[in-house]
Each structure stands twice: as C-alpha cells, then as structure tokens.
C-alpha cells in the first residue's frame, strides 16, 4: 500500500470514451492522486466500481465518513498535497460536514466527492437525498453540483486548482449518480482559467519597502508566525528574516513547526495557553510582523488591550484577514514566501543592522523567570501521579524531530503538547486549531501516517477526544498503519473540567467520563498493541516501547483529574493578564492563581464578561452550596460525595477515589 509511488499526471486515458464514474477516477488519476479516503454507499457505488480498476489510486476504507474526511485532512496537512475523500449521498454526505468545516477553518486543501441521487429526483426528498451543496455552503471554499458530463473534467480540474491555490481550503463536488453511468469522452484540460478567481501572490513593492522601514525603526519587534507560513512553505525565508534582524518569534498553534524550536529566537506558543514571556513580548512590542496569522481570539485575548503600542505589518494571502480583527498599518497581500524573501533582500540591500539586543535581553530574563515547568510546582494532590508536562517532554525528547509527526486531538493534552513538544520542521505538528474538533486528531494521524510512511506518527489524545472517532482503529489495523496513540487519560473532559473548576465553582456538570472503556482491552479488540501506565517511573520506558512498535500502538497514560493547563489567559481578559504562570523570582510557585472558592456566584465573572447570558438557576443553588461548603471546609472527600450523589455513580472511579 504505502510503497505505491506518486505518479505524475497520466493522460493515457485522454480521448477515451468512458462512463462518468470512470471519468471521475480518471480525473483523480490525472491530478496525480495516489490515495483517497472514503466510504461507499448506494449513490457512490458506480464511482467505487470504477475505483476497483485503478492501479494508481489506493482507497483507504474508513469506518465513518467523518473519519474519512479527517484522514484526508491529515494526509493533506502532512504532505502538502490535496486530500481526497469519496462518500455517498444523504447521511454519508452529512457525516462529512464536521471534517469539511475543520479543514475550512484551518485552510487545508481537500476535494470531497459526494454521490448524489439522480438529477431527475433531486428535490423530491428521495431516499438518502440531502442538499449537501447547500448544507456545506458556509464551510467550503467552493462547491459544485455536477449538472452534465460535459463539465465533469473541467470541474475536477477547477476543484483541485481552487483547493490548492491562494488560501487553500476544502472544495466539494456533488456527483448525481445518473451522470456516473452516462457515456462521455474523457478530455482532461491542461490549463485552468477562472476569471473570478485570481489570488494575489506577489506583494506590493511599495508596501514591502514600508515594512522594511518599519522593521529597521523597531526597537521591540516580534514576528508572529501562523499556519500560512507552513501552507506557503516560507520557513526558510522567515528564519532568515528573524536571524538577520534578530527578531524574536512567537507561533500560533497552526504555526507550530513553521519556526524551529531550537532557534534561540523562538519564543514558542502565544495566546490563551502560551508562555507568559511570549504574551508579554506581544503586549510590550512596538512592531508585530504577522505572517500568515489571523489574530484569532485565542491569541489576542481582549482585542482592545492587545499590544497597545505595536505597529502592525500584516502579511497574508487572504485580503479579508487583514484588518479583520486588528488594524494593520502596513498590509501586504501576497504569498508569505515571496513577500518575506523580498523583505529580506530589501533589508540586506539597505544594510539594515539588528538593534534588538536590549529587547532580547529582556525577553531572555522573562524566559528564565517564567518557565513553563518547574519541578517544585506540583499540581493536584498527592505526589506519585504522572505529571502530564513530563510525559510530553519525554515524548518530545524521544522523537526525532525531522522524522516524526505529532498530531493532537483537542483539549488539555493539545495545549500541553503545544507547550512541551519541540518541533523543528513544518508539517510535523497537526492540530485542529480553528474549529477545535474533538475526534480530529486520531483519524488525521492515520492520514498523516499513510501520506508519510517514513515518519513516526504519534497522536496525542485525551480520553474524551479519542472516543469520538475510535472506530478508526479498525482502519489503522486493516491497512497496517503503524500509528501511535498516546492517551492522556484523566477520565474527564479536562479542559471543560478546568473551566468549571476556575469559573463555575467546581460544578462538574457532565464532564466526568470515568474510566470507561478499558482502552487496553479496546485496543486488543482491534488487534492493536497497548499498555496502561500509572507509575511515573514507567513513562519513559512505555513511550520508548510505543515508538519502537511496528504495529499500531495505544499507550494509556493515567494522569490526575486535577491537572490544569497553565499559564492561562481567561477568556475576555487582556493577553498579559496571565494566571498560573510559574514565577521563579518569588520562589517557583504559580502566581496570580484564580480563587475558585470565592463565596460569590460562580457565574458572576462570566456574567460580567458575556453580558449576563449565563444566569443562575435558583433551583440548583442549594446543591451547589452544599458542594461549595464542603470544599470551603477543606473536606474534599465529602465534596466528592455530594458530587457523586449528583452524578450517576461509577464504581471504578469511586473505588480509586477511596
């Protein structure tokens, strides 16, 4: 399967008469597609029949259409090629929606082909009919409902072109099944011309000169690097710019890997769970050079207080991103690679000299003062439990950064992974950044492992996220995809649990998952290797065992429920209003910790932020007060008891607690 070579577009089917379904497959072959992910069904059966004859295309059968789209997405993110998924009409098509929306938010090139009922019955509520073009309209870059075989090849050519150029994104092609059986002449167009679609690649020279001047004048500049740098392949240029002008670099979640962690100028992640020093760097800077980043609310915090003194150079291929959240003094629409390389050559021509020594010194001091982790800071309760930060560090150290891909699900583990796993090259850290899709990571890891068979692919998951698409374990087993899954198992929905702890007075409404299922047995059922670890001393060894496995491997790492991700900027707060950052200047403790046990209404803070949308239900005040009182008396056990009485009892968890 994985040995199959990527063929150059073959046009040996050019000029042949064939069915529409065969033309769909021939079009994919002409686009050089080697792998598609999908799930057949009534209206896709003709396409699948044609696929049966293809030597070039390997079809990976998923176990759920959502899994298929995430797999295609992971394949696309890891390889940079267009990911392709094929599904049937109706429920098959609607199951792709989350996958498509995920790809749209993170600008991933996908072509999703959906079977549709025959043209004659469209609009009659026929069996397995859904208006998938209508349903997906807000989350696709473009979509087509094929109306005739005459436009079939041109549509495929345009779909791949639109998906992969400009700001990449998902494109959907809906293929009525009567077209699939119609005879047609296969002529695949060489070129594509869409008059209404002409992305701007080349940056405006005048603006680039203005940017050069601003960089030369800046005393406290920051490069703010996002996923656009990876899409554009602009890493070398960004590194050159940073090195030449000695500008520190912060990365977004999507930008992780776009700048090597080993570069001394790297400040790592920024934003809600970014380092305090990165957030301070943004806040204090006098110039932000945003490259392929979009000032997401998870990065900026409260926009009105974000980087108040900074001028902004915003480089993006999508003009709609510029000025959307933060005004840009110097907007540059264009492809990051070309723009940054022009910027560097302008700076060199002007013989610009870096003048950031003082700034870097200050940042260095902050970095030493506010580390991500300090051994004296023990979270949660008793010692002897596994510390998630150290699990991530161990994984990071054991992975070869050039030959591995880390994929994450969504939640606390995702933030720990972004904080503690060092990445050196682009396309080596894949995560659902924009939509925050739980259930994305594991299938995406399968897709990445199929696209990059030479690399070790590890999915860092939570016990909640993993269960959202765990059926794909079958896909990995059957296709012998040696994907590794490391579950940070806290038996709860950690991130929501953390918010409930911090902002909702420890009312753990529906976030306690309990130790169910037994992941080791689940893995066994799918023919995976697996191991469960509870002892901190076993972690390094278990990770080594996982990484050396030639089979798919699941490592269930048991961590405490009370672990929180810090530092954290509360939603709606200014970026430098960081809570829980470690400060070694005051003796290696977490500072500015929120007081969760305030006697006042747990919702009042949230009310203040969101304009009173979160009101208290007078009916449940009593129950909450019982828990609060128990907690205030330091009686965690009886608090747990009250809680347990409120949730359905689960023996496994109760037994462990007692």
């Amino acid at each position, binding site marked *: 399967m994985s040995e199959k070579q990527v063929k150059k577009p073959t046009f040996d089917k050019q000029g042949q008469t064939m069915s529409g379904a065969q033309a769909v497959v021939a079009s994919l072959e002409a686009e050089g597609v080697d792998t598609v992910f999908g799930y057949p069904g009534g209206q896709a059966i003709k396409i699948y029949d044609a696929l049966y004859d293809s030597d070039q295309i390997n079809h990976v059968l998923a176990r759920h259409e959502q899994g298929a789209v995430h797999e295609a997405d992971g394949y696309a993110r890891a390889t940079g090629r267009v990911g392709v998924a094929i599904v049937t009409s109706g429920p098959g098509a609607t199951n792709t929606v989350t996958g498509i929306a995920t790809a749209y938010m993170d600008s991933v090139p996908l072509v999703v082909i959906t079977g549709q009922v025959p043209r004659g019955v469209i609009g009659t509520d026929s069996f397995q009919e859904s208006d998938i073009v*209508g349903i997906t*309209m807000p989350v696709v870059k*473009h979509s087509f*409902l094929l109306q005739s075989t005459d436009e079939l090849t041109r549509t495929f050519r345009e779909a791949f072109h639109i998906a992969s150029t400009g700001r990449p994104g998902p494109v959907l092609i809906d293929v009525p099944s009567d077209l699939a059986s119609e005879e047609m002449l296969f002529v695949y167009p060489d070129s594509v011309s869409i008059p209404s679609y002409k992305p701007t690649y080349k940056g405006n020279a005048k603006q680039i000169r203005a940017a050069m001047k601003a960089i030369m004048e800046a005393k406290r500049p920051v490069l703010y690097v996002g996923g656009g740098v990876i899409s554009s392949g602009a890493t070398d240029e960004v590194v050159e710019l940073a090195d030449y002008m000695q500008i520190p670099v912060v990365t977004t979640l999507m930008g992780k890997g776009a700048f090597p962690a080993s570069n001394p100028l790297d400040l790592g992640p920024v934003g809600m769970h970014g380092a305090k020093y990165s957030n301070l760097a943004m806040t204090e800077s006098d110039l932000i050079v945003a490259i392929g980043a979009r000032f997401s609310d998870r990065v900026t915090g409260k926009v009105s207080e974000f980087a108040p003194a900074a001028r902004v150079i915003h480089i993006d291929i999508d*003009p709609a991103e510029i000025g*959307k959240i933060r005004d840009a003094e110097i907007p540059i629409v264009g492809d990051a690679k070309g723009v940054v390389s022009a910027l560097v050559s302008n700076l060199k021509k002007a013989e610009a000299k870096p003048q950031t020594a003082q700034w870097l010194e200050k940042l260095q001091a902050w970095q030493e003062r506010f580390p991500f982790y300090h051994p004296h800071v023990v979270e949660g309760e008793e010692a002897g439990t596994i510390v998630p930060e150290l699990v991530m560090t161990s994984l990071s150290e054991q992975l070869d950064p050039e030959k591995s891909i880390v994929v994450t699900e969504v939640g606390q583990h995702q933030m720990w992974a972004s904080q503690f796993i060092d990445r050196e090259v682009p396309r080596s850290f894949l995560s659902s950044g924009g939509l925050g899709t739980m259930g994305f990571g594991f299938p995406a890891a399968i897709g990445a492992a199929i696209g990059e068979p030479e690399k070790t692919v590890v999915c860092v998951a939570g016990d909640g996220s993993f269960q959202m698409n765990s059926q794909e374990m079958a896909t990995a087993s059957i296709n012998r995809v040696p994907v590794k899954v490391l579950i940070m198992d806290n038996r709860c929905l950690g991130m929501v649990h953390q918010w409930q702890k911090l902002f909702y007075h420890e009312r753990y409404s529906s976030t306690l998952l309990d130790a169910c299922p037994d992941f080791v047995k689940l893995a066994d059922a799918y023919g995976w290797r697996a191991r469960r670890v509870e002892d901190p001393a076993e972690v390094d060894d278990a990770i080594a065992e996982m990484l050396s496995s030639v089979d798919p491997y699941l490592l269930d790492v048991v961590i405490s429920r009370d672990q929180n991700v810090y530092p954290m900027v509360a939603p709606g707060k200014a970026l430098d209003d960081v809570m829980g950052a470690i400060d070694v200047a005051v003796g290696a403790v977490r500072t500015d910790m929120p007081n969760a046990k305030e006697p006042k209404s747990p919702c009042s803070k949230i009310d203040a932020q969101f304009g009173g949308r979160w009101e208290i239900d007078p009916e449940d005040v009593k129950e909450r007060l019982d828990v609060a009182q128990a907690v205030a008396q330091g009686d965690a056990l009886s608090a747990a008891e009250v809680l347990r009485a409120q949730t359905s009892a689960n023996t496994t968890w109760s037994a462990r607690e007692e």
Partner: protein
Amino acid sequence: MKHVLSVLVENKPGVLSRVTGLISRRGFNIESLSVGPTEDPTMSRVTAIVKADEVAYEQITKQLHKLISVYKISDLTDEGAIERELVLFKVNAQPERRNEIIEIANVFRAKIVDVGRSSLTIEATGDESKLKGMEDLFRAYGIKEIIRTGKIAMSRNSKEQ
C-alpha cells in the same frame, strides 16, 4: 450607514444563496435585493442594500470577493449612481376622491394601472425620495398594499469600466 452593493456574479443555480448566505452569516440584514441577468447571459447582477459601518462593510466586500462565483463588486453608495425602484401602490379611493389621487400620481409621473370600485393601483418608479414622497401623500387616503421590486442601481457615465 446604508450601502448600495452591486455584485456581478456567475449566472448559475445557487449563486444567489452563496451571496445572501454570506451577508447574513456575517450578521447583516439585507434591506433590499434585486437580481437579474446582465447584457452577458452568463452573468447576473445582484443589487443589495445593506446597513453596515465602514469596517464591517469592508469585511463583507472582502468576503464576497472570496466567493469563486463573484466577478466584481461595486459600491454605488457615494457615486451619485442612478437608483431606481418600481413600486405598486393600492390606495383607497372612493369615487369622489379618485381625481385627487390621479392628480398626485400625475405630478409624480406615475401610472394608474388598475381602477377598482373603491381603490386605485398606481405604478411608480423613481429613487428613494420620490417614492417616499408619494407614499406619504397616499397614506392620507389609506394604503391597502405596497409591493416593491427592490432597488437597482447603475453608475453614471463611464465610471464603471
């Protein structure tokens, strides 16, 4: 403020919902809308009136530009463009007051298109202020029904390439 958006789009099924869906998705109400094919049958012209401040308006037009089906967007708000709308008024008109109403219609160069026992139907075209003026006058007699086509607009002279 109000913006008159003139959007040149591909004349294909579903394009109108792409355009209007995007505008409403970004939180704006379309006050008036009209669509029709242009001199080139493969293209249609959508004229939409949208209320938005400058920043929001810029964001809408940028997002519209990203739609593959959109060729061109012109803002005809500040251009002194030619704006027209066709309105049908059905006005209460007892026989003894018919002449007054017909006179008003004549002043505005509107046409009487139907006469009933106790009502008149008047067809009027014009810009917003003219139609508003007529509406105010007819209101004194009692308006039974108003139907509008939605505004269309065209730039003057050679402003449009």
